[in-house]
């Protein structure tokens, strides 16, 4: 299997073509979008918390490449329903592994996210794969700060 095929595995292409959790988030201010400075791609992530402090909903609106779109889609599936502290830890360790700071084997225990391990061979694509995750961490901070507003305004 070539590095290219390792990068664009079937599961990545499937999540790219049919992203799970994609939504129109035009109501989220542009200033809250996360941008990839190398290509101008942008993503908005919105998190809704339940009363119990778990992630009730995780939506994203991305204009991006196969890697950034698939990563957002896989992320939304993987993190939905988790406690916020747990989700934060998982996001931090995912970002760490892709940056080459953590143990690559960590991804093996992260379900379908293991499909993104091929990104490690392409340092230029790490930003694509982690864009959604950085946006998620900011969205989580916002949701934690303003839980009342979000639950009161489901829109």
């Amino acid at each position, binding site marked *: 299997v*070539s590095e*290219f095929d390792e990068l664009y595995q079937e599961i990545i292409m499937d999540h790219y073509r049919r992203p799970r959790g994609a939504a129109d988030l035009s109501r989220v201010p542009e200033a809250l979008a996360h941008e990839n400075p190398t290509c101008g791609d942008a993503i908005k992530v919105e998190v809704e918390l339940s009363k119990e402090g778990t992630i009730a909903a995780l939506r994203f609106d991305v204009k991006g490449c196969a890697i950034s779109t698939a990563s957002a889609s896989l992320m939304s599936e993987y993190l939905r329903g988790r406690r916020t502290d747990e989700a934060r830890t998982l996001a931090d360790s995912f970002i760490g592994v892709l940056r080459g700071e953590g143990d690559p084997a960590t991804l093996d225990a992260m379900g379908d996210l293991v499909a993104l391990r091929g990104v490690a061979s392409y340092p230029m694509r790490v930003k694509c794969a982690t864009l959604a995750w950085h946006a998620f961490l900011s969205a989580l901070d916002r949701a934690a700060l303003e839980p009342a507003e979000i639950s009161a305004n489901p829109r």
Partner: protein
Amino acid sequence: VAARAVVKSRPPLAVPSVAEVRADFPILSRTVRGKPLAYLDNAATSQKPSAVIEALTGYYESSNANVHRGLHSLGEEATAIYEGAREKVRAFIGALRSSEIVFTRGTTESINLVASSWGGVNLGPGDTVLVSGMEHHSDIVPWQLLCERRGCALRFIPVEGDGSLDLGRVEAEWDYSTRLVCATQVSNVLGTVNDVKALGKIAHRRGALLLVDGAQSVPHGEVDMVDLDCDFFAFSGHKAYAPMGIGVLYAKEDLLEAMPPYMGGGDMILSVREQSSTWNALPWKFEAGTPNVEGAAGLAAAIDYILGLGFDWIGAREAELSSAALERLEAVPGLVLYGRAKEREAVFSFTLGRAHPHDLAQYLDAEGIAVRAGHHCAQPLLRSLGIGSAARASLAFYNTIEELDRLAAALEGAARFYR
């Protein structure tokens, strides 16, 4: 003009073959991911001929010393190399005086120098900087910083549908608060060749100055400062087969004389007292600190190399490659090409169906083909085109028709893969 001792297009001894020219560039024989490298990212940076690489090592192996100081032989040799390079640049771009040639790190620093020094004392509230809508970020952001600092305004010349500038419209809609017009001679995205000479006439008749970004034009065709009659002209060595980290600002002498220094430090002063200093003569007033002597040596070697091939040969070769590329790209189903101006260079930005430019570039890389993908440091232009990013193939004389065939085949493969 008698002062211009210029050998511009030295006729080559014999018409070089493409194979011979390619052999001058060691990197072109390497492979990428198991395939022969097809380097189609020349607008980002060009590859370097052996003559340039040898100029760098030669400088360090035999002449390295600091310049303009130290009365020893190496210092004299290094100074001769550095100032010789300046004279070579002067003749190459048809400037009248070597005092008008300031060495910088590149186009970006050259434009920042003008914005900071000229703009810092000449522009203020009520003044406008007019830039073309197809400028690189390096010809936008320095003006934004200046406008923030000095309270002047920044306005843009809209880009027409075919990727050109409508100079008639610029003239008709002239805003008399305009003090400076900035335009690229060749767009790094659209390939458009702008008639900067005509733009300069429009500006000058209305009391404004003209700054030309020559980063994409200098490597591909002859420029002549006297003929262009621009006030400022910036370019980079590294896009013109020279090393990274060396560039040029040309400016008319009277402007440079009146401009305050950009950076302070060694070499740019005549004398320093505790509270004040006096400035060195031009162009050294603008060259604080130890300069990039190796870069200047490399730039001189690159100019010799270009003139050895001759712009007649380079122009004919790149025109042939350009029409071959256009023909092949137009035949790729679903490919949308941006920039259809009548006068254009061999720069092709495109999107392809659903395939994101990043993914496209990755697919091409797996085939050994290097293209750029992204916003090409021209986000305002891409936004006006209604896209966030594009893939770009940009050619140089050492590219081949066979590489263009590989590009077209790989693009068709990518379209199938990402459909």
